[in-house]
């Protein structure tokens, strides 16, 4: 048998990534949270707004939270104008990010199929496709036969318990390698002199009246002209110290991988009612996820029955996966808002900005978040794309409700 080297074609990481400096006593901007969103925000603050006297504070290891735990799906086919605007902006940035960061992000626009299994899901899907097209987001409605042509291993037979009645198709969607994305941003930030401080947990805020002037950390107080929070589920724990309650609830969300397999799955498939989403990563492992665990928790682990149900869905849709093996499961903590859309913008406190509530959609938004949140911090007002995602909407009622008609939980 001729030896093959399936792993050899993966690009190597660069020979230099980042320093691990101690924090200085003061910065123009401090970013709380060294995940994808924190790093991307710092990046665009530096690149678009010229701010480099800046630290990204991470309580653990860089990009070790949800950035290291997601299933790396990227798409922008959201229903509402507000969501489509932000995610499509992100997708356009993704399309140039590899070149901009000069880092192999393994961004692969292999398309995503969102399956419909009921007449109502079909209506919702057509509605989303029509809205996407008018918003300039590439989208098509496919019948089961067209679905089968794109993903032949998918069970599109009519005798499925919930047959595939069709799917939406976004060709420009795809996957990227999450670590590479975070590390690409981190390396660029390190080069620009931004401090990436690991093992530095923010525990509270320094304030003068309603003005935030710094943060308290496990490594001492750090003064800051502005503080931008990008700490996902932990955000509400921190804002509690200010007496500011945020409408987010944290849930476990699990994902898993199989062993390396020869290529069988050419795209990304997501199903909400036979709940699973799956892609095959570059090395060959199947990467799968499903819904959140229903209880609230900050633990990065979920319950077993969630995995079992997800595997039932996976084998139902992809009978050939029966004897693939689960190598590893893991969990992240996703922060979910009442309308399943993020919160990004101003707070009642001067110089304090918040970005959280991304639920299961955070990874794909990463560059878009960075772009818009950086704008918000730099200009002290939201970018038009994130203006609808203000905290005030929960008071005014101007919600961006993505769990109804969007029919898509991620």
């Amino acid at each position, binding site marked *: 048998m001729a030896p093959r080297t399936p792993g050899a074609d993966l690009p190597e990481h660069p020979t230099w990534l980042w320093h691990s400096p101690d924090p200085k006593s003061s910065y123009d901007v401090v970013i709380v949270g060294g995940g994808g969103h924190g790093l991307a925000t710092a990046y665009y603050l530096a690149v678009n707004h010229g701010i480099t006297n800046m630290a990204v504070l991470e309580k653990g290891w860089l990009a070790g939270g949800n950035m290291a735990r997601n299933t790396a799906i990227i798409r922008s086919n959201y229903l509402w104008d507000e969501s489509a605007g932000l995610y499509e902006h992100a997708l356009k940035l993704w399309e140039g990010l590899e070149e901009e960061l000069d880092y192999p992000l393994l961004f692969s626009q292999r398309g995503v199929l969102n399956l419909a299994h009921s*007449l109502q899901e079909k209506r919702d899907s057509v509605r989303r496709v029509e809205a996407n097209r008018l918003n*300039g987001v590439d989208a098509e409605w496919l019948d089961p036969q067209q679905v089968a042509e794109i993903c032949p291993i998918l069970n599109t037979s009519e005798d499925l*318990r919930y047959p595939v009645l069709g799917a939406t198709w976004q060709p420009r969607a795809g996957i990227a390698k999450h670590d590479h994305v975070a590390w690409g941003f981190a390396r660029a930030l390190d080069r620009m002199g931004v401090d990436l401080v690991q093992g530095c947990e923010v525990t509270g805020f320094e304030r003068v009246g309603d003005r935030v002037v710094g943060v308290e950390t496990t490594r001492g107080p750090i003064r800051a002209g502005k503080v931008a929070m990008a700490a996902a589920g932990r955000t509400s724990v921190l804002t509690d110290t200010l007496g500011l309650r945020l409408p987010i609830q944290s849930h476990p969300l699990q994902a898993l991988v199989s062993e390396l397999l020869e290529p069988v799955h050419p795209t990304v498939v997501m199903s909400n009612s*036979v709940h699973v989403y799956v892609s095959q990563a570059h090395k060959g492992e199947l990467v799968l996820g499903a819904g959140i665990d229903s209880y609230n928790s900050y633990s990065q682990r979920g319950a077993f029955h969630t995995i079992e149900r997800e595997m039932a869905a996976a084998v139902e849709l992809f009978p050939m996966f029966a004897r693939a093996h689960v190598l590893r499961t893991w969990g992240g903590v996703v922060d979910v808002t009442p309308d399943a859309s993020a919160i990004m913008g101003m707070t009642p406190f001067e110089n304090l900005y918040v970005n959280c509530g991304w639920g299961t959609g955070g990874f794909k938004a990463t560059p878009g978040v960075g772009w818009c949140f950086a704008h918000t911090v730099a200009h002290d007002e939201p970018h038009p794309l994130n203006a609808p995602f203000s905290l005030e909407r929960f008071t005014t009622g101007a919600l961006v409700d993505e769990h109804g008609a969007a029919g898509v939980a991620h």
Partner: protein
Amino acid sequence: MSNEFRLADGGRIDRDRPVRFDFEGQQLQGYAGDTLASALLANGVHRVATSNKYGRPRGIMAAGAEEPNALVQVEAPFPEPMLPATTVEVRDGLQASGLPGKGRLATEEDPARYDTMHTHCDVLVVGAGPAGLAAALSAARSGARVIVADADTEFGGSLLGSGQTLDGRAATDWVRRTTAELAEHPEVRLLPRTTVFGYYEDNYLVALEHRGDDASSRQRIWRMRAREVVLATGAHERPLVFSGNDRPGIMLAGSARTYVNRYAVLPGRRAVVFTTNDSAYAAAIDLHDAGVEIVAVVDAREVVSTYWASLCVERGIRIHASTGVVSTSGTDRITSAHLSSLGPEGNHPTSVRQVVTCDLLLVSGGWNPAVHLHSQARGSVRFAEDIGAFVPDGTDQAARSAGAVTGVLATGKCLTSGAEAGRDAARAAGFDAELARVPDSKHAPILAARHLWVVPGSGDSDGTTQFVDLARDATVADVRRAVAAGMDNVEHVKRYTTIGTAHDQGKTSGTLSTGVIAEVLGVGVGELGTTTFRAPYTPVTFAALAGRERGDLYDPVRVTAMHDWHVEQGALFENVGQWKRPWYYPHSGEDMETAVLRECYAVRSGVGMQDVSTLGKIDVQGPDAAEFLDLVYTNKMSTLKVGRIRYGLMCTADGMVFDDGTVTRTAEHRYLISTTSGGAANVLAHLEDWLQTEWTHLRVHLTSVTEHWATIALVGPESRQVLADVAPELDVDNDGFGFMTWQEGNVAGVHARVCRISFSGELAFEINVPWWYGREVWEVLMAGGRPYGITPYGTETMHVLRAEKGFPIVGQDTDGTITPHDLGMSWAVSKKKDDFLGKRSFSRPDTARTDRKHLVGLLPEDTNLVLPEGAQIVEQPELGEPPVPMLGHVTSSYRSAVLGSGFALAVVKGGRDRVGETLYSPVGDRPVPVTVTEPVFYDKEGARRDG
């Protein structure tokens, strides 16, 4: 080749049961009791697989699940990717081949069945080696319900392969007697071939049992809730890192010992043993005694054990102290080991070299306790300097570790710690347990080990063939590169190098890689710690996890009492939640549109009948039922009189429509509420949520009674006559039986509750009978209606009829962003009630806007056109460049028999103020003109309701 490396006798294989198997086209023979690995070694096959990244030949490194190298693809009896040859039992017809890094999935459907068992026990013992068996014995004798699970085909763990004695007899005798005693205890369940792979909250553990291809289920998931857990999970031997440490013929010392003793297989003829600790000496002695020439024992330590040295001297085995193997030669198999003096610990090695020819190199870098399950359960670990590995260090679960997993390696101590753990666990579970006597074992003195991460002086100075993780082809060079790039955390290095991410999840490489990283960084191993251990401990097939929940059993199919009748009539079905609902009943040659037009016409002009049993029904009882319903519905239900029915809307706290249905007051403190078919479970959960968390003072009980009643909607101008015919006792006149009232009485001889409600605008009766009588009553009504041309109709016709009347369907015409006001149903929102769910939200600025999206009707200018549901609505006929502002979308759209045209419902921004306007809907790429109308298209006066 025929077992030329098989010893003439000994071992635990069944020599009376030879099996023939195929490996990469070679027909080979093994015996029952062999693994594929032992059978291959017996046949002299060492090169098994090809490495993942560099395509290097790889052999068999271990004898168990920790195997990093010898991965095979099983082709027959059914394809299964990436299994360690060390865990595959040989059997007749087995066909396998070595893997080049990636597995292959079968293209045909897996015919096997997989299932699940649920069980509870007092004490779960994980692992049936010396510690686990001793623990089980202590616990079992107390009468506790004990489960013993072990991955191997038989119990005994390390005792099966060590050739040692207990109480002066073969250790396997003790294993046999102990297992036999355990099997006799009625409360003990023994689970061989069962790997406990997950440890979740509150002592919930899950295991995978391999039951065999011929069993009724091939694999079984055990879901186990244990009062107490004993983790006797043992330890994995650690390889050593030197140049070319990956060649076939390089094997863990303890594993080689297992091959000789358990499988009666010689893994080579001429062996070098390279160790940092005492344990490999036993392997050297056993292999020597079995006929392997031990060319050299290479010990990294300056001082070696006199106990083992004397045993070696007796056998003429030469020991090289302060020496290491720094590199090897060979292509498909090792041909020589290169030795170098290491000097004392901390000193630089000298360059003295000696080349020793061999076909087998045994390595032992110490032992890594298998702390996986302990860690999965959030137990902490600490670095134990004495064994150079991480050991359990406290847990919040009702669990204890025993045996080698605690870092104790001597068999006697493992037995004792096991017996104690079993006794303690049983006592903690409430049993009067005593310490089981453990057999005497020969105790060899243990001399301190030397911890070597990268063997100093390894010839390959750039580290590109010094493999840290064989399964991922990750080398010392990769670790150095990661650290040089700034990575100073095991998680980052793991991700940079992919160490620990392969099928074996780093069982042999985990501690080793931490050690190598620490060495490169110049910090202590304990400071760095481990990466997170996650389930599953060993890979588990998707199908096993899916269990029986596949195909028809993926989700329960719910059918009504009349389902078979619908099937007999050729109905097509729609999935609504878990229900199968008749969609429409096509006559021969009819397409859906024709059938639906016919059904619609029949209802509007004569009489039709629909099975509406699937609508959710919740019995609400209690002194505070009225108050409760006032809180959960937007309209007032406390004023409803007994005997009457009211339509009601429920909102969520944000003021958006959540569900709708009827509320029937059946007694002073009792209501029956109906919900949408798909929403029933959510509504009940929603109501319970509020009752149990916010309104705990309310004395209300909720019971789902959906399946208690079969419900038939008898609809159309002739419905009264049909009902009168089959229910002569019932007063069906409008005066006696007014709209939105109910009566009880005999219908077709069955006691029924009949309600005058209508979802079509026509005169209609809803007949509820006990589920059992559903079909009988249905058929009587059908027969009775025949003279009137009674027509059964399905959900599609129901949808059309209600849309003609402008009745919204929650979930179709609403999407969680629509208020009752948006629907034009302000009449259903009480202005008098102090509070109800959603009330406060209606005053929020955005919710109070008057230009929100409203439910309206749309009539396409082309009367023949049926707009696609989901189509968007725009203001202008020219779309222009995106983003194009959208006003709303089509929620429901049909062809109407009575209108003679297509029509639609839509939600449109400021829609009620746009009635009469022309808007556009892009159909395909062509915006078509539509006229905005009131949402009621038919019988606006409501004249047909009373017949």
